């Protein structure tokens, strides 16, 4: 998966304006070439080791596991990566590719700002021009990351159209790309968009699952009972899941944002409460109304606030290989407080959705069973959001 035209069953594909078909095909060919190129892979590995800081630890959260009284919970510490989230795994890969393709300008969309920071970071490292599109509402709730991107030399462009969040930033980045296709490389941050992005971003993120699989076997001598990861677009989840797909005894849980509750309509859970459609270059599950218009989403976490999801997740859902559940704002906040106080780790609000589901799952399992939770990012960027909820001004 996917097939040569980028289909995961009925999902995926390429649904973009004709102007972009040439550049997308150019990218596919470049990626096919370099993914099998030993020089490229060696450079990527060296950067992941010495710049990103891989491998990241697989940490046994002993106190938290004991308090929950069930399965042993292990955290894959993507929060310890340079820039503080799993996003850097992918941007290093795409920047190396951009450089080999002779592109001098990187553009990206960002929600919580983690992907924007990761893109600005690699642009700085490789001396490339960088423009980041970000919803005006997200810029407000993620001000520290906006500042980080600017420090790194990127131009951050506020997007004021539509709902002023991630989907609109993506529209705007697509418009930039179509206007500057000659020198510009569009660094998509998740496993969505037109082929080859879903497969390419997945491949760059599978380092998470490959490491985790080897680490859990080494630490416990067995595969885990379950993997849990949050799903917005779904890149950290696919990265963790993919190397375990053939281990059928390992249950896979993708956790979407239930926001204020699935029943309220104020959520960001297309796999749990949406239906298939076409948006942003691929066919996948979407949050849409009965006329096919894309709905506004809600999540406490800007990084999950997206009405679509990667097409491979849509396929895994229909195939029954992965189970998708949703966790609301309140539960995510409870997990934020729990992990911070019990383990001394401040998790990103995105990751808190996965942690919250692990809190539900662990007590139902036995103590010899293991759960790996992908701690996809650190919570520094979210402390303003949490403080505001608690009525504290920083």
């Amino acid at each position, binding site marked *: 998966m996917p097939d040569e035209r980028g289909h995961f069953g009925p999902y995926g594909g390429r649904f973009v304006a004709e102007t972009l078909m*040439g550049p997308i095909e150019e990218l596919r060919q470049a990626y096919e070439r370099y993914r099998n190129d030993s020089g490229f892979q060696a450079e990527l590995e060296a950067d992941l080791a010495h710049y990103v800081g891989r491998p990241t630890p697989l940490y046994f959260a002993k106190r938290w596991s004991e308090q929950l009284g069930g399965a042993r919970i292990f955290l894959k510490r993507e929060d310890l990566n340079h820039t503080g989230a799993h996003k850097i795994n992918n941007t290093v890969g795409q920047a190396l590719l951009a450089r080999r393709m002779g592109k001098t300008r990187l553009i990206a969309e960002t929600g919580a700002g983690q992907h924007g920071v990761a893109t600005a970071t690699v642009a700085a490292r490789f001396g490339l021009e960088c423009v980041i599109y970000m919803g005006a509402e997200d810029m407000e709730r993620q001000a520290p990351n906006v500042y980080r991107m600017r420090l790194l030399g990127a131009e951050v462009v506020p997007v004021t159209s539509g709902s002023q969040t991630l989907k609109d930033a993506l529209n705007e980045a697509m418009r930039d790309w179509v206007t500057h296709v000659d020198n510009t490389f569009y660094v998509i941050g998740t496993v969505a968009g037109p082929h080859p992005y879903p497969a390419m971003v997945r491949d760059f993120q599978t380092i998470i699952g490959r490491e985790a699989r080897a680490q859990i076997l080494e630490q416990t001598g067995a595969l885990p009972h379950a993997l849990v990861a949050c799903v917005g677009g779904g890149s950290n989840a696919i990265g963790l899941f993919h190397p375990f797909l053939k281990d059928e005894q390992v249950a896979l849980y993708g956790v979407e944002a239930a926001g204020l509750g699935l029943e309220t309509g104020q959520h960001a859970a297309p796999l749990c409460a949406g239906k298939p459609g076409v948006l942003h270059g691929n066919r996948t599950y979407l949050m849409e109304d009965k006329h096919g218009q894309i709905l506004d989403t809600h999540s406490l976490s800007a990084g999950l606030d997206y009405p679509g999801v990667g097409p491979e997740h849509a396929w895994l859902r229909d195939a029954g290989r992965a189970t998708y559940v949703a966790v609301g704002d309140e539960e995510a906040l409870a997990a934020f407080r729990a992990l911070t106080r019990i383990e001394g780790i401040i998790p990103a609000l995105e990751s808190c959705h996965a942690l919250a589901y692990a809190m539900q799952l662990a007590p139902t399992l036995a103590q010899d069973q293991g759960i790996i939770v992908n701690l996809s990012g650190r919570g520094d960027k979210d402390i303003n959001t949490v403080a505001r909820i608690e009525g504290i001004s920083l």
Partner: protein
Amino acid sequence: MSRIAECFAALQEQGRKALVPYITAGDPNPQVTVPLMHAMVAAGADILELGVPFSDPMADGPVIQKACERALAGGTSLGDVLAMVAEFRQRDQNTPVVLMGYLNPIEIMGYQTFAQQAAAQGVDGVLTVDMPPEEAEPLVMACQEQGLDRIFLLAPTSSPERMEQICALGSGFVYYVSLKGVTGALTLDVDDVGQHVAMIRRHTPLPVGVGFGIRDAESASKVATIADAVVVGSALVKRIEQCQDKPEAIPEEIGALLRAMREAIDATGSA
């Protein structure tokens, strides 16, 4: 012969070029659209492009995005757009109408249902911006069965192989996007467009329309020397936006803009 083919055949006989205005259906309110369609025909439009509003018009610039937002605020759905075409047909049986938009509203309605209803209400052609030929077969088949023309975009970035493939799949006319960028973008390089149109003509006997970047009578007349059809969108939609507080004036305002373009284009044709 389809209404679009008949239209181009008649124009060719007269030595004239087609003027193809685009408006977003339901912009700024649903009541304006049908009177505006008639006004555009009266002002010299040959084919009407009716935009189906979509929440995320990625290939369009801010002008048309805002038009979509106004239309959606007024509740205009794909079903409503089809009803507008039916109403237009009560008084106009001749002017071809092309629906232009994004795939998702059609996908939700269902390709078969959409094609049947569109044909029944008097639509002549369908152009979906985000559906390249690789993904087009199911909708193309549904449209073909109902006698609807399939209009595809060609871009400056289209390879000769893609031109070949797209021209083979399309009917009615092909639409050359005159520049890299979104609708309403600025510069138009007429020589470059001319070279691309000449290349397209080697692949297809279909008429070639050119759009993106045509903002006034002068640019319209330049494009008319190269292409069979001149597509004007953002320039009209911008005027509609300026008139949104007095929508009753819109048919006349847009008519005046089109008449100037019509005259400029016809002057080129007879030169």
